[in-house]
């Protein structure tokens, strides 16, 4: 089985509990860096990273512009900034226009990750209420990465996962436990 080196997760309405569960299921020292772009209310700018970190065994942080990323850490796109992966294993932030009515936009994180990290990446789309992420997941697939979509039946809001399934050719449609199992197998 092919193994991957990076994980990128996108989600919106109804994804918070899934993300929390993923983070608490991964062991201390889990080596793959995880990039997370989750929509949230524009006004809720603080407290989100703390809420995710509460149960996570992996360190969770909001990166600053041009920060490098490292194994064993999870990174959350800060409120009101797009998060992109740049060549040279670092991040860039931008406050460009919203994409798909979203800032951060999952499409931007996913497509930049696909461009830079090519076939080394697993992209995961979780529950959500708009189609953001579908284009990005398609680019991950086209660049040789693995496209994973949470099973729509399991999602509180199906729009995002259904759009992602439609945009991709051969996505792995998995329920949350299978997603966690897949991530654990990468080590």
């Amino acid at each position: 089985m092919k193994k991957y080196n990076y994980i990128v997760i996108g989600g919106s309405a109804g994804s918070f509990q899934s993300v929390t569960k993923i983070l608490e299921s991964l062991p201390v020292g889990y080596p793959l860096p995880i990039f997370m772009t989750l929509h949230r209310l524009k006004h809720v700018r603080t407290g989100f990273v703390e809420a995710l970190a509460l149960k996570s065994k992996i360190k969770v942080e909001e990166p600053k512009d041009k920060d490098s990323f490292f194994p064993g850490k999870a990174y959350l796109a800060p409120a009101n900034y797009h998060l992109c992966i740049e060549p040279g294993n670092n991040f860039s932030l931008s406050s460009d226009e919203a994409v798909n009515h979203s800032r951060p936009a999952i499409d931007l994180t996913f497509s930049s990750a696909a461009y830079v990290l090519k076939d080394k990446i697993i992209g995961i789309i979780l529950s959500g209420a708009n189609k953001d992420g579908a284009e990005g997941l398609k680019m991950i697939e086209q660049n040789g990465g693995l496209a994973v979509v949470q099973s729509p039946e399991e999602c509180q809001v199906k729009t995002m996962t259904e759009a992602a399934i439609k945009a991709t050719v051969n996505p792995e449609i998995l329920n949350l436990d299978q997603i966690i199992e897949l991530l654990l197998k990468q080590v």
Partner: protein
Amino acid sequence: MPTNEDIIRFHETVKKVSEYDFSEYSEKSFARRIEKILVDYLLNMEELLEKIAEDRKFLEQIVKDITVNTTELFRDPKVWQTLKHRILPKLKENEFVNIWHAGCSTGQEVYSMLILLNELDMLHKARLYASDINEDVMDKAKAGEYVYRFNIEYIENFKQVIQVNPFNFEEYNSTAFTKYFDVNKINDTMEIKPFLKNIVTYKKHDLVKDNNIFNVKFDIILCRNVLIYFNSNLQNRVFSLFSEALERKGTLILGAHESILGHESANFIKYGHYYIKK
């Protein structure tokens, strides 16, 4: 998405026909700006390059389209609370207080600063300078008029900064938003009151190549969410420009998710939301 080669050709063309240089802008976001321009103007890459080379006015327009102009009144209220209660009070005994808003865009932060200075009774000694690469946004800054409903969070930010004191919860200031803005709900506008207009010196400035054009040393420089569009090399150039332009112990305020990396960090000490020049 334009290819790497496309972007390189774009940079070369711009450098050849003008004094602008975008080659040290952050790669990903720059490519996206170009992509958006191609869509907005219904051009392909060849046509874009041709038009830039031939038509100076068009190039100026593209320069304006490339730069990002997102800003807010009292964006990140904690930063403004710190300015109000920690940074500005220390300058109260100065004869003048010189402040530079580098990359001021449409001026919301310039007015945030003027409001704070007025609240602290320091307006008469303040000298504000503001710059941007885009003169159109500076015209908007001078006009001081913003859309109301879309920006309703300005009022929330205002309350957090002006009405409450996070360093002393017993303090409450009932100053209303309308002390500083005329709100017109029918036209959906809010306009800064005349007494805060025409105070600021605005000048066109390109952080890529220009030096301190104001011929003063600054007590405070604000440059928020501008440097995220530059690569590390260009960021270093700008930090050294700011270091030169600041008074000793002067304050540099960056965006909430920006920081000084690289060798220039040796010239500054970081305190939470801001940097002090050594």
